[in-house]
């Protein structure tokens, strides 16, 4: 569904992505893990056009999108939950969800809104409150639902566990597992490698702008390097 070939990205003179190639097939959950500063978020931002790749190609549903303006991508079926959640803080919770559906022209937006509020009652309880008053975990939920409001084909999730308490991380990952069960295609960026690999089908490991490892989630969970660098002692055990 999504293919990146030798993508190079820069922030000014800084060469951040040094030839990234990866792919995501329909229905899969693929995760990109790596340490801080490895370039994971930049990868997502390059996919959605917030950063323009200088070289390489990005294709989504057989369509070259490396030059497509960001605001056209939602219409193509690509939704991005940014790092740090980035809810519109002074807009109400309901308005945030509506913004997620900005591009939709069918008449079922209200129905979807109601469905999300059904599944996550906090969204209904706080529907008219400014999104900024929600807790971190609630905002994460909101951000994910907001992205889902566009009924995307592919969901890009950037560090959903960041800054959340272990309880909230659990909740968020339950949601991700649900989405997977429903067949949503997801590209998941995470520092929390264990949680990510538990829910993913396949994974890539990134280090300083390059992909150094890839394989199925199980393969990676067992891999020496991965274990040492990302799953080592002292790492938060959410799932044990």
């Amino acid at each position: 569904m999504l293919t990146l070939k030798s993508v190079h990205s820069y922030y000014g003179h800084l060469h951040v992505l040094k030839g990234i190639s990866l792919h995501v097939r329909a229905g899969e959950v693929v995760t990109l893990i790596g340490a801080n500063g490895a370039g994971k978020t930049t990868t997502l931002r390059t996919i959605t056009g917030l950063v323009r790749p200088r070289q390489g190609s990005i294709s989504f549903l057989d369509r070259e999108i490396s030059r497509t303006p960001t605001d056209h991508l939602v219409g193509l079926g690509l939704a991005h939950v940014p790092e740090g959640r980035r809810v519109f803080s002074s807009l109400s919770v309901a308005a945030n969800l509506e913004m997620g559906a900005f591009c939709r022209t069918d008449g079922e937006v209200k129905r979807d809104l109601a469905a999300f509020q059904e599944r996550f009652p906090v969204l209904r309880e706080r529907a008219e409150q400014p999104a900024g008053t929600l807790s971190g975990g609630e905002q994460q939920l909101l951000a994910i639902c907001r992205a889902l409001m566009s009924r995307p084909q592919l969901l890009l999730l950037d560090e959903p566990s960041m800054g959340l308490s272990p309880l909230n991380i659990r909740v968020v990952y339950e949601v991700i597992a649900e989405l997977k069960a429903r067949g949503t295609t997801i590209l998941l960026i995470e520092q929390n490698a264990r949680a990510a690999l538990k829910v993913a089908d396949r994974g890539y490991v990134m280090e300083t702008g390059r992909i150094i490892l890839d394989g199925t989630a199980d393969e990676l969970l067992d891999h020496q390097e991965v274990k040492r660098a990302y799953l080592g002692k002292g790492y938060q055990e959410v799932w044990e």
Partner: protein
Amino acid sequence: MGDYLCHIAIMGGLYLILAVSLNLIIGYTGQVSLGHAAFYGLGAYTSALTAIHWHFPFPAAAGAAIIVAALFGVGLGIPTLRLKDDYLAIVTLGFGVIIDLILLNLEITGGPDGLIHIPAPRLFGLNYRDKEVYLVLTFLCVAFTLALIHRLVSSRYGRALKAIRDHELTAQVMGINTAAYKIIIFTLAAGLAGLAGSLYAHYITFINPESFGLHTSILVLTMVVLGGMGSLLGSVIGAFVLTVLPEMLRTVADYQDLAYGGLLIVMLIWRPQGLFGAGKLSRKFTLRGTKDK
């Protein structure tokens, strides 16, 4: 030298002092002041009033002008410590308008009609109503101004100022009292503008608030932008270009403001560093391409 050419040269010299002093503020605090003409006006009125009512000789009147303007410069400098960019620009504008209003409304300043019969200087027995003589006086003041600024820029203080401009936080950490330096800049710039005001008052011999309002402030700003913000040479050139050109194009006087306005926009889009801008500050003002689109 013809009277007319002398006049242009004198006015050019005055605007040069104004432009160069405004550039001090812009170049060394990185902030725009939209009320610079207020100091010009304060200097002019102070000089005129002390000469008329207390019979101050020119050097004393000019000195008073410089001091009064400088004091107000301190006053304007203080908000700069707390405000930045847009807000500061507007405050300086407000300052200019308030001074304008005060000059317009106080009895002692003669209201909208201003002051007349300002005595010409009496120095060394020369006749200052002769434009050539006044030109020499102006020239001396201009030379003094340029020399002063040049000394400042190349001195140890100048280096401290550059440090503040480029990396304020670092400078503070290094123990440089950035607040004091900023205020000094405003004071100096205001004082110089006050000097220009005094020269103006005793040259034209009548003054009214109209010459010292927002319009003049913006004209001076245009000169600085044209020449290059932060560039001393640029301000000199800018001042002359914008004084001489309009005089030579008297026939199209109506289009002057149109040209100034258009010039500002065009310069900023096409060459924001001005004609002579170079170096770090100009790069600050140069367009950085948006990193993604």
